[in-house]
């Protein structure tokens, strides 16, 4: 330390990281996603997952949901930096543990197997609102909605029932109750 040869100070102590879900309402215009994502990569923030789509076609508003990790200071910076972007209207931030917020991810599973295994696969998905989107003699496609960790587990555990392909979205979030975020 005393012998540092750098023109810069050395890094401070490592702090605990929290997982947060950041929701950003933006003008749906060219390059807006690049601005948001570029802010994260440029300043060294994490993105664990990302979901984005237009939610108000009249006003051209898109809603971006980003799952990120960081120290409390970094999470604060993320929010404040996002708010400075010109196309950003508002920014909400929820802790993953927050009981007042619903988080959901969707996944599509494709199974290729015999009938017995396919039925077992459907059975295994039953806690996660399974929808059978496609079915043939030797395959099916099941849609589930669940939490990130649950989908992680499922995609590991279902290999034995012939899971061959997984496609999944980032998390989306919404508060419980009648209140909306202003």
């Amino acid at each position: 330390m005393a012998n540092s040869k750098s023109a810069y100070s050395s890094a401070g102590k490592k702090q605990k990281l929290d997982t947060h879900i950041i929701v950003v309402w933006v003008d749906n215009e060219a390059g807006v996603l690049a601005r948001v994502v570029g802010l994260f990569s440029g300043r060294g923030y994490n993105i664990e997952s990302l979901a984005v789509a237009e939610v108000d076609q009249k006003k051209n508003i898109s809603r971006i949901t980003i799952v990120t990790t960081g120290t409390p200071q970094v999470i604060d910076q993320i929010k404040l930096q996002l708010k400075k972007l010109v196309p950003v209207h508002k920014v909400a931030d929820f802790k993953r543990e927050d009981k007042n917020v619903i988080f959901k991810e969707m996944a599509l599973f494709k199974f290729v197997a015999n009938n017995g295994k396919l039925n077992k696969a459907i059975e295994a998905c039953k806690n996660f609102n399974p929808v059978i989107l496609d079915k043939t003699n030797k395959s099916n496609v099941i849609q589930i909605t669940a939490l990130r960790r649950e989908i992680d587990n499922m995609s590991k555990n279902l290999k034995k029932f012939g899971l061959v392909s997984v496609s999944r979205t980032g998390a989306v979030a919404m508060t419980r109750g009648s209140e909306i975020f202003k």
Partner: protein
Amino acid sequence: MPKLYSGAEIVFKCLEDQNVSHIFGYPGGAVLPIYDELKNFNSVKHILVRHEQGAGHAAEGYARSTGKPGVLLVTSGPGATNAVTALTDAYMDSVPLVCITGQVPTHLIGTDAFQECDTTGITRPCTKHNWLVKDVNDLAEVIHKAFEVATTGRPGPVLVDIPKDIQFQKAKYKNFKNKQKLNGKSHNNYSQKNIDELINLISKAKKPIFYTGGGVINSGTKASELLRELVYATGFPITSTLQGLGCFPADDNQFLGMLGMHGTYEANNAMYSCDLMINVGARFDDRITGKIDEFSPKSKKVHIDIDPSSINKNVKVDLAIVGDIKSVLTSTLKTFKKTKKNFSKSNKFQISNWWEQIQKWRSKKSLEYIGSEQTIKPQYAIERLYELTKDKDTYITTEVGQHQMWAAQHYKFNKPNRWMTSGGLGTMGYGLPAAVGVQIAHPKKLVIDIAGEASVLMTMQEMSTAVQYNLPIKIFILNNEYMGMVRQWQELLHDKNYSESYTAALPDFVKMAEAYGCVGIRAKTPEELDDKIIEMLNSDRPVIFDCLVDKQENCFPMIPSGKPHNQMLLGPKDQKEKKITGKGRTLV
């Protein structure tokens, strides 16, 4: 039916409505329609630079010395990429710039066309915002919005990319009404409660200090006046960052000099030991704080800043006041005068021990250096330059390196907007083109670029611009043949391995001046220095002044990396007295 204007005309209609009198630029294929219209708009004068980076820095110099946005106009591809350094520089130092770039026609975008580049993609991280205009009907609104974003809140650069076909297409132009509203991103966001809290802290403090920065200057000259009023009314000491120099008179007794890596002993020790730090428009930059964990450990910290994301970014503060400095200081003074009449007198006793301590630190005379009769000491050169120019309203720009720090330490600024230097990005080659921009804005004033020989060579071609427009800028080069700051770090931290920091084949700057058609002057000894400086000042033409200085001189005091403020490295005089001990040696 209303008159239709081409995109190129609309660009100038907008510039006229924004009261832009000068633009800095360089033509090229994708901006030719705009250049074609130049002749029809007499109120906008175009300054032809020699490199687009020069256009950017000139616009910065113009902006920082006037408080108005600087405008540059460059072509697509290399024109845009050359401007990126200046845009990044302006972003780091919060300088309002509007950069207009040409782009290949809309139907060729994405085809790797000649001189095409993803300008908005490249400049996204170095502008506050940028726009690619794909419909001529949006053009006027976008340009006006660009000026609004650049100049409101924390100022910064913006870019408008205009494809060539849009410059030809026609649209209506509605006259623009200048509405002074903020862009909703950065309005004042503080309450009277915050102000009361601040005044409460002020009245309790026993070891207070004001730490002020470029935000005061960006907030306008009125902000500097208010700051002075508050500092006098409290009787507190004040220190300033590199960018804040000039917002408080440097020759005033309450001013402790610049703080930070090359700041004075008294300023840094006061920052370390204070019990109340009032940060006004500064951003706790790493050159200021040193080791964050040990930064001013015992103080309550107040941070007044217009940018909410500056609060708690590097240093956690106890009281944040988000707002424009001018408006925050106005509220503070109003309440202060009402509740604390004659405060500076009644409070004198409470902070008298603090001032005594500061005087002790001051008596170290940390900016002193060992003089010489044979060679010109760089500090001496700046001192003489200051003495011989202090009666004039002088504008100083600098390049980046030792000379920049010596200028900040030894040239005393008493007014805001007189000091233009690249602090955040540290761009070598900033000073010469910035001086061009300053002189354009202030044709009758004395403009000096305090330069190093290495930095100035990076943008030397702009001398040609200065000659073309009869700009009598003075390029005062402290020539030590080294990249001085690199050499200093190598001496102190890399065992004197002067790897590639010596410039072996420097040009003859006097002959170079003559080749450019300006005046070249060389000073070799301390004896002749004054006469030569006077000769430079008496010239009404651009001058390159080659001041040959001591090649080994280092810039002190200095906080070694990763050290707190109270562990400074002082100059050679002090080191001799102290005899560097084992521990001291590991510091260097």
